[in-house]
Every structure is written in structure tokens, then in C-alpha cells.
């Protein structure tokens, strides 16, 4: 699947396109098919996202979304060396998802 990601213009936070809005949770991302460029142009023009780009991802057995490249998995979770600053600070195993 293709998913669309970028950073929030004001905060810089990593965001994912949900089909109608932007979420900080990658599991909310939807397959944008071949619409990535059109959505990116529209949303960037509306200042709802900064520097959006499409990436490959796959849906796992639990229905979650896993970006294909480690860089985007780190973006999705947070720095692996600071679990307390990730989106899942209470989950000690969260870093394994990245690797």
C-alpha cells in the first residue's frame, strides 16, 4: 500500500493522511493509491501539512500499518534511543517494531 506522510506545519510533528485529515498515529494511515500527489498538493496548499511525500507500507496481521523503510518507522514511533519520547512510552517492546 501507499501511504502519505509529512510534518505538521506549526509543530513539525510527523503526521499521516487518514483519508480526511492528518493523524500522528501511523495506524490511522490509509492507502492513497495513485492519489498521493493530488492529496499532497491540496493539503500543502491548505497549510495542513509540510513537505508531504508518499511511501510504501504494508498492513500487518493486527490491522496495523508498517512503513517499508526503517526511517519512516522511526518517524512513526519516535527516536529508538528515547522510549520516553516516543508515541508509546509505556511499551518497552515498541522499539522492536522499528527494527
Amino acid at each position: 500500500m501507499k501511504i502519505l506522510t509529512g510534518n505538521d506545519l506549526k509543530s513539525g510533528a510527523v503526521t499521516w493522511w487518514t483519508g480526511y485529515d492528518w493523524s500522528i498515529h501511523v495506524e490511522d494511515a490509509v492507502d492513497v493509491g495513485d492519489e498521493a500527489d493530488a492529496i499532497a498538493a491540496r493539503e500543502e496548499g491548505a497549510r495542513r501539512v509540510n513537505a508531504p511525500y508518499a511511501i510504501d507500507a504494508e498492513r500487518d496481521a493486527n490491522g496495523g500499518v508498517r512503513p517499508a523503510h526503517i526511517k519512516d518507522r522511526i518517524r512513526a514511533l519516535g527516536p529508538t534511543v528515547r522510549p520516553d519520547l516516543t508515541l508509546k512510552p509505556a511499551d518497552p517492546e515498541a522499539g522492536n517494531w522499528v527494527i
Partner: protein
Amino acid sequence: MYRYDHYDQAMVDSRVEEFRDQTRRRLEGKLSEDQFKPLRLQNGLYLQLHAYMLRVAIPYGTLSGAQMHALADIAGKYDRGYGHFTTRQNIQYNWIKLEEAPDLLADLARVEMHAIQTSGNCIRNISSDQYAGAIADEIIDPRPYAELLRQWSSFHPEFLALPRKFKIAVIASQTDRAAMKLHDIGIRMVRNDAGEIGAAFYVGGGMGRTPMIAPCIREFVPVDQLITYSEACLRVYNRYGRRDNKYKARIKILVHELGREEYTRQVEEEFAHLLTQGIEPPLAELERIATFFADPPFETGLADDAVRSDPGFALWLDRNTLPHKQPGYAIAVISLKPVGGIPGDASVEQMHLMADLAMRYSFDECRVTHAQNIVLPHVRKADLFAIWQQLEAAGLGAANLDTVEDIIACPGLDYCSLANARSIPVAQKISRRFADTGKTAELGELKLKISGCINACGHHHAGHIGILGVDRKGTENYQLLLGGSEGDDTSLGKITGPGFDEDGIVDAVERATDVYLARRREGERFLDTYRRVGIDAFKEAIYG
């Protein structure tokens, strides 16, 4: 240390307001990202993996206590409670909000700091010897010259759009503690046979994807021609640097392609022309600047030893302090490399403590080193124990300066959008491995440096042991290099062979150190043994 005059302050304040207006227009949609990006980068604001990142310039790494306190306050107010000290003696904040960046810059300006020219194709922050003004082996304090160069290069209209970024280091001793020959221009202040002060110019060094050691192009430039000669070096580069290819745009490529002789000839020609133009600032300005770097009022008659009754303190004393030029004083280095920690990171609380220690014990001054540590440059030996106790209590008491645990590491793929692999977890595993095996002290001086990509912010080319993270078909892979050095004997490390995964590289590093322990001769460092026995003995042990 240098204090802003009203020109400096006015320039920085006006720049903050200019950026405030640019940010407002961006948030209102009056500027696109394409239009805004070069403006934010000129103010040190990058967009990294997780958020905006702000790089703050720390001129030649020197900070007052108030400035360090302000950096701590910023980490608490605008970031997530910490900052990251970098290999260019700067600090970076990883979680900055665009809408708050102008206020942050205004807070910085209140303590005479900014983030200008910490990005972009301009002359970056001038770096220097972290022990300047304190160490006995320097011929003169290099910082007034670094400050003069800072003033010359700040907003210099001719050099704000160079072919690529440009880094200058200034030292004033035979011992190079600033990786001077690995800069675009390295300047060593020297004294000639007549006893006059001047500058030796090394031009065309650098790391990155094409590492090169800068050749000396002139052994003595009179001190009253320092800026003129620098300008000549920059002009030739600005005229002929490769703007057509980003990867060939650094001055090292120009010097290499022209050859040292031809580049030097062109610089000398330009220099002769510039001498007729009277661009050199009057010596009175240099003398004015130098007054800010006069020695602090050292006490005399102090005891020249420290009580060593606590074994932990004695270890720290031996490892993390250096002789000071003034009897009764020492240079103390605060390691930001706790075992298993993140190299260069310091929390709000730790920064406040270091600021307090600087104010109370070190004439209100501290330094950031390119090895990502903090220096208290002027400490009475009698105060060292009290300092160490406070550092220990704050998790800053690691006694590992210049050891295998004192690892330089770039932010890597945990933070950096350019990185191909993570650097920090590798550093953490290596420091834990050697702390656990207890070999750190036995290995002695061993400089280990890790970069998460070929841009080499972690100085891997210059490590006695270097590690380069690469992306191999979407998987992190680590190449091992041996034999680099950034000191007087500057050399570039050689790749040993195929790369390793994260655990494999830790094993490979340990095997390399085992070769050293088995084959070293009396008094040899790791680097000395490597140079004597050659790479093959190490490869055999590493790859079996």
C-alpha cells in the same frame, strides 16, 4: 569572553524580528515552503525526522554561565528537556515548534546568542581549541582571532551564497585539538623567527564523502593581514568552486583539482590585489577584541595538588583533568558520555548544574568540545573534589575522557533526515561492552567515532576506530575503519572490509582492541600499534 557591542546586538535583534515576520507570513500562507525553507535555514531551523530542529551557534565553543543557563531554559521551555551538543561545538534542539521559533531566538538574543549561519552555503560557526586561554602549550590565545573571523564572516555579503558550506577552525598550539586540518580552512597561529605572531593557513580539508587533509598553503600570514588572506582564499573558491555538482562543491575538491600550487598561486594573486583595497580591519579592533579574552584574575600561591583519598575522584582526576598554565589551577572536562548514554546529550538539570559550576568555580566560563563534552577551563585544584561530587550526583561524573567510552556520535537515523543508519545505539552498546569487560582503562587513549551517513558529522574518518552506518537494501549496516586521527598526526581511516550488523560491529570493535592489547609495545596507543603492525593483522582478527 567576548561581549556584544551595540552593533552586534542590533544585528541579532533585527534578525529575530525579520524572522518573526517571515514565520508569520509562512503560517498565514503568504510564503510557500519553497520560499520559506531558505529563510528558516539561514536561521538554523531545519526540518528533521520528528520535528523542526534548531542549531544554535556557540562561537568557538565558549559559553558564559548565563548563556548555559539560557540554553537549559530553552531546552525546558521549547524542547523536551534536553539539548544535544554537536561536533562543531554547537547545540541542537530536536523538538522545536515553528510557531515558537521566533520567541526562542529572542530568548537567545537576550544572552547574546543566535542561530544565524548554522546552515546553508555560508561560513559557519568558527571553531577552536576548547582549552584556549588555559592550556600551557599555546603560543597565544586563538579566540580573539576566531572572534575577528566571526565578525568578518557574519553577514559578509560576498560569502552568503558560496558553492557549499564553509567551516573554519583556529588553533594556536602545535597540538591540534580542533581537527584543524579537516576543515575548509584551518588556521594555526604561529610565531616566526622574529617573534612576530602570524597565521599558517591550511586549506581544502574536510570529511564527508571525499575526506581530505588540508595542505598548508602559506606558513606565515602577518596578523594584520589575517582577514585579507582569508578573503583571498574565499574569493578564489567562490569564483571557481563547483556549483554544478553538490558533491564536488566543497573547497577541498577545488584545491585537489587545481592542485595546491595552482590554488595557492591564485590566492596569492588575489591577496596582492586585496592588499591594495584596504579591507583589513584596523589592528585596534583586534586589540579591542583581545581585551575580552584577557586572563581572569587567577589567584597565586595556591596549592598545586588535589587530595586523592576517594578512589572514584582520583580516577576522574587522572582521566578528566589537564594541567593548566596557571599553577594551582586545572582544566576539568565534564564527560557527556555516561556508560550507555547518548553522546552529547544533556538534560535541563545537567545544563543548569554545568552553568552553576562555571559561574562558581571557573570564572563564569565553560566550553563545548568538538568531542561533545563540556570543559570548565579555569578551576582551582582545591575545588576539583567539590565539582566532581556534584557531577557524580548529576550523572556527569564519567571518568572516560579520550577512552573507548568517550565516543563521538552524530544523531544518526534516530533524529536526522540525512542518516542511513542509527549511530547512538551503536555507541551505547560499545560503551556498555567495554564498561562491562573492564577494558576501558587498559586500552587507554582510543578515539572512536561514529557517523550515520557519509556526511561524516560523527568524524568517522578521523577515529582511531571509525564506524560508518550505511543502508544496505533497507537494512542498517556498519563499516569499520581503522587508523584515523584528527590530531597533529592527522590521518584518514581505512575500511577494513565488509560491514556488520549492529551487534556484529560491536564484536568487531572488541576484536580490533584485542589485537592491540596482544601486540602493543610499551607506551603505544591503539593508533600507534595500528600504524606499526598495519591493517592486515586487524583484518585477520576481525574477519577470521
